[in-house]
């Protein structure tokens, strides 16, 4: 099983908090790109992570050539063609920037979008930035569309302020875009609220086909009503994974394990083996990215991408 995301990086502010340094990363077989990345730093407004910091919202960079991307040669050599940077803020202060680097555009039925509201235009959501690969008709439809609170995945994420994982988008009722998405071959959708600050909302959607999912498994963990422990609200992968399901029945206390650390610190985490080969026969999962969803300096949820 191939996944669309090839490389994941976490960039964190250095001691002086004036530039971003390498935190951790999942590079798979891209060892040369890893070597070119781990010593890199990004000043405010520099490179893809620095831009996301300066602009204060997620960025989708669909072309590296002649752009502000700093590792163009290495990325091209590795076949990486598209980058997504997601800043994680607590209020106006940056905690980290998560960068996804993707490749194989023509083979993938996949779209990654940043939706934001425009208070001047009736407060509806529209696509601010997006990567659609070969899905041009779907891109055209999506970029012209505006969604009210509660409409489609972005609208529902806005309404609830919570991440949302839709395993089968044909089951979203009353959404014209879901029909267009199905026509484009998209089956699964994930929406994550990234920023909700002073009325400005940014929501990311990851839309994918079963054949090339965003990750091998996606989970949404939320604090229980008493705020004592995390529980897994939802877990989904293309093939059922009863091992993952067993671990999704566990609860996690603040500070305990990788997810507990995300809750404790508000920082995204990459865990697991960096080198273990994935065995598709076993549906095994050997690495994980956990992204916190923070609103008003409190953890609302953690979204995990398992590979």
């Amino acid at each position: 099983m191939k996944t669309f995301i090839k490389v994941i990086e976490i960039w964190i502010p250095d001691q002086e908090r004036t530039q971003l340094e390498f935190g951790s990363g999942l590079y798979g077989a891209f060892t040369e790109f890893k070597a070119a990345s781990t010593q890199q730093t990004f000043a405010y407004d520099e490179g893809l992570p620095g831009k996301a910091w300066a602009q204060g919202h997620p960025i989708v960079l669909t072309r590296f050539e002649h752009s502000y991307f700093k590792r163009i040669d290495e990325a091209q050599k590795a076949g990486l063609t598209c980058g997504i940077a997601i800043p994680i803020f607590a209020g106006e202060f940056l905690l980290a920037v998560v960068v996804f680097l993707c490749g194989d555009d023509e083979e993938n039925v996949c779209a990654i979008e940043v939706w934001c509201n425009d208070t001047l235009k009736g407060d509806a959501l529209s696509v601010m930035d997006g990567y659609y690969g070969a899905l041009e008709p779907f891109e055209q439809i999506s970029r012209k569309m505006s969604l009210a609170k509660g409409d489609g995945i972005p609208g529902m994420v806005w309404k609830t302020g919570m991440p949302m994982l839709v395993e089968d988008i044909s089951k979203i009722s009353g959404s014209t875009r879901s029909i267009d998405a199905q026509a484009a071959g998209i089956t699964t959708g994930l929406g994550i609220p990234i920023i909700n600050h002073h009325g400005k909302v940014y929501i990311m959607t990851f839309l994918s086909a079963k054949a090339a999912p965003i990750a091998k498994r996606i989970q949404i963990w939320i604090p229980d009503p008493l705020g004592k422990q995390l529980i897994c609200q939802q877990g989904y992968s293309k093939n059922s994974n009863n091992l993952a399901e067993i671990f999704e029945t566990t609860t996690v206390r603040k500070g305990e394990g990788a997810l507990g650390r995300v809750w404790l610190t508000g920082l995204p985490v990459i865990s697991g083996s960096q080198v273990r080969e994935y065995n598709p026969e076993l549906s095994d999962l050997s690495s994980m990215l956990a992204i916190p969803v923070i609103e008003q300096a409190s953890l609302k949820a953690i979204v995990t991408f398992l590979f």
Partner: protein
Amino acid sequence: MLNSLLVEDDIKATLLETALKAHQFNILKTHYSAAFLKFVQETRPDLLIFNLRSPSEALLADIQTLNQKSPLPVIMFTLDGRHETLQKAMQAEISAFVVDGLDSQRINSIIQIGLARFKQQQILKHALDEALTQLEDRKQIDRAKAILIKTQNYTEDVAYHTLRKLAMDRNITLGEMAKNVIAMADLLK
């Protein structure tokens, strides 16, 4: 009929060749060179027979490499009986090492003993590998059970049966499944 690769210092020597032919061995004769390992890979003999004044360090290293990757019976006739050479020959897992004992009457019995010893060594090696794998699997299974007991509040019995069911669902061994459980737990560590 066994295919033997015969390596001699003296390419004109006929004693070994004649004795081997008399005992129905197919023979391919060569000199030792830097391309020896490649030559063995290409010709794929059933056994290697050497008749050398003294085996070089490079040759003994090549035999050791060969025996680590795809073991073969190796019979060595030599005049070099130094302790150091014997030690290296042992390390290289040579099946029969005969010092100054090239006698046409004894050649066949030496080779047969070498072949039998090689076979016995392989059986022991295989048994050792299996025992080590089982021991390692046992450790992994115990670790995976401990994880399930701790995270799921399972009893030891339930943990074992869960592990076994997961393995059966995937059609893999308990040891392999245990590694998956450990990897999954590592993610949440």
